[in-house]
């Protein structure tokens, strides 16, 4: 996850630095042709770089969030199995509930703290997939997780929650295989 974030971040920072250092002059000669001032074009170009880089960074960060949730969930699956083998029923239940929560976070591209960020972006008119939202492919503000993947992950999240009180290794494996398949389909995009 960190690798993705770090890769994206310098691009944004670089573009921001370009903007900050731009010495934009709004003055032009009285007889100049009615062309867009070159400084403004250049600055706008820099802003475009920032916007494009930011969008890429956004996708990278959300991918990182998914990767983190997926990785942690995988770890909790292993922990649940270990607890089951050790006869630690309460530990197994807690671990499987963690898996349920983490898979739910994958469905919603992060927990409620991310929801607040997504809301802020939407408030300000930012839709990562504006066109695809209209087509019903993505929910509003979603970046990586398609509607289909979201429903699949929500179903798996709930299935893990339902099996948490009495998990079985076969049950965990079967449901985790679904999560793996969904996640793999998202990574291909």
């Amino acid at each position: 996850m960190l690798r993705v974030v770090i890769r994206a971040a310098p691009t944004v920072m670089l573009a921001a630095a370009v903007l900050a250092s731009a010495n934009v002059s709004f003055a032009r000669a009285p007889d100049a042709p009615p062309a867009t001032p070159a400084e403004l074009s250049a600055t706008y170009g820099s802003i475009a770089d920032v916007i494009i880089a930011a969008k890429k960074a956004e996708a990278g960060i959300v991918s990182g969030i998914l990767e983190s949730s997926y990785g942690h969930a995988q770890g909790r699956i292993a922990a649940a199995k270990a607890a089951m083998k050790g006869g630690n029923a309460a530990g197994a239940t807690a671990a499987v509930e963690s898996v349920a929560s983490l898979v739910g976070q994958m469905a919603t591209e992060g927990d409620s703290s991310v929801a607040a960020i997504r809301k802020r972006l939407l408030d300000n008119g930012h839709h990562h997939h504006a066109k695809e939202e209209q087509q019903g492919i993505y929910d509003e503000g979603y970046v990586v997780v398609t509607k289909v993947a979201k429903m699949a992950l929500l179903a798996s999240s709930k299935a893990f929650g339902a099996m948490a009180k009495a998990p079985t290794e076969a049950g965990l494996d079967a449901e985790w295989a679904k999560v793996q398949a969904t996640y793999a389909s998202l990574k291909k995009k």
Partner: protein
Amino acid sequence: MTLARAAALGLFLLLSHGCARPAPPPTFAPPGRGDSRFRFVDVAGSAGITRVVLSGRATMDHLLDSGGTGAAFLDYDRDGNLDLYVVNAWRLEGNQVKERGSNALYRNRGDGTFEDVTEKAGVAGEGRWGAGATVADYDGDGWPDILLTNFGPNVLYRNRGDGTFNDVAARAGIEAPGWNTGAAFLDADGDGDLDLYIASYIDTTIAEVLQATRSLPWHGLELVAAGPFGMKGAPDHYFRSEGGERFVEATEEAGLTDRALAYGFAVRAADFDGDGDPDIYVANDSDANYLYRNDGHGRFDEVGVWSGCALDAGGAAQASMGVAAADYDGDGIMDILTTNFSEDTCTLYRGLGGGLFDDVSLPAGIAAATFLPLSWGTAMADFDNDGDLDIVIANGHIYPQIDSHPEIVGTFAQRNLLLENDGGIFRDVTGSAGPGFQLVQSSRGLAVGDYDNDGDLDILITNLNERPDLLRNESSGGSWLTVTPEVEPGHGPLIGTEVTLIAGGRTFTGDVAAGDSYVSTHDPRVHFGLGKIESVETLDVRWPDGTHTIRHTVPARQFLVIRKGG
């Protein structure tokens, strides 16, 4: 909900009901009994419930203008008759405050009429812009107190026991200035005193409210009040009681941090996972709802998404306004109903046990009846005493500008809804539920209680810029039993207690809650409709400390007091 999704869902609902175009605005069947068992009559005017609830500007330029207020049933003087409390707001004109409304406490005279005792009791609301009323004996002295959640500092009216109250919110540490909305008292940590969860909506100021202009396009036809998108959400609060007199804010410590800064509206505390301690459900506007699961020691985990009650069946966060919690299908497991914005359905989450839920709105018949109206206060209760829980919903839009286009979703003023439970499927019986259900207003708060002690449940509803409705239940119904589980004589129902009946081969479950519906509080007594059952085989009271009191062969049609240890 996105427009595309609303359109798709609307089309599905309409096609599934045999019509291919949006339904026309509601048409109203003539009032009367017809073949319906239900009959409700608004008696507020003749009963003396006359104070108008103020609601900002007529044009509703800011969401605060149209938020409305709540109401409560309570027996503040412990004379055995339910009294009424109605919250009020302010009246604005342009950017001027024209009038600060007074809340109202109506004492039940026991003869079907009420006396306005607001001034005498000292509970007018301190001039605040009110939102909700949550009633509980927070200090354990046996007298019900009133928490007023406000736009501004909250007010906590401590009942002195002599018919008067004094505001102790500052001393108790729960003023929490902001746009406070729904609240619930619960003994979260099992120490015997009542803790408090308060939801908050938007982080805004009165200056912003006064300067607000309508800027949000509605269906490309009108400019209406902006938000909540575009506005910063305000964090909810959790206050832990320190011995029943003072509270300390323990939101983060208890795991209840409102990380989404969700637009919170309604709160219900109940044992949603059946493990014996109270959990907290928060209905949020335009955000996923929260289900906070209690570990039994007052520490919570937010489990809404994987438990299946945060989002609708389509995986979408809805614009929730109100909440009801009860066991509508008689399986002994708590179910949850949320009321939502117009052009979206109310959502019925059926409890599966262990804190898991399924959205059954479509198969249960909730979706079609609730798609067009904008819904607020609600309750699942047995209004015809036939042995199953029906649903009542208060409706009313927030944009008066829609009145120019009634063909789209109806009008600002809307009819409330009564849905009859018919074997787990809900049928809209509003049109034949008597004149009380033919009123067309912009309703908000809703509380249910048996104010005339005749064994059936009446309904108190607040309306914008009108007096409240008091819908007296004149339905022909079956048998009933109303239970008051209390610790000390006269202290009233103990919050968090669950009552289970086994009768006629069926199980009936109810609980005592403080804070429900939309910023309102129901009659705390636990009411059961029993149909043809005249005797209950087993009555089991589970007290908050986990102990039980059990009675056998209990005759129906009585108000039964069960005393702990008695």
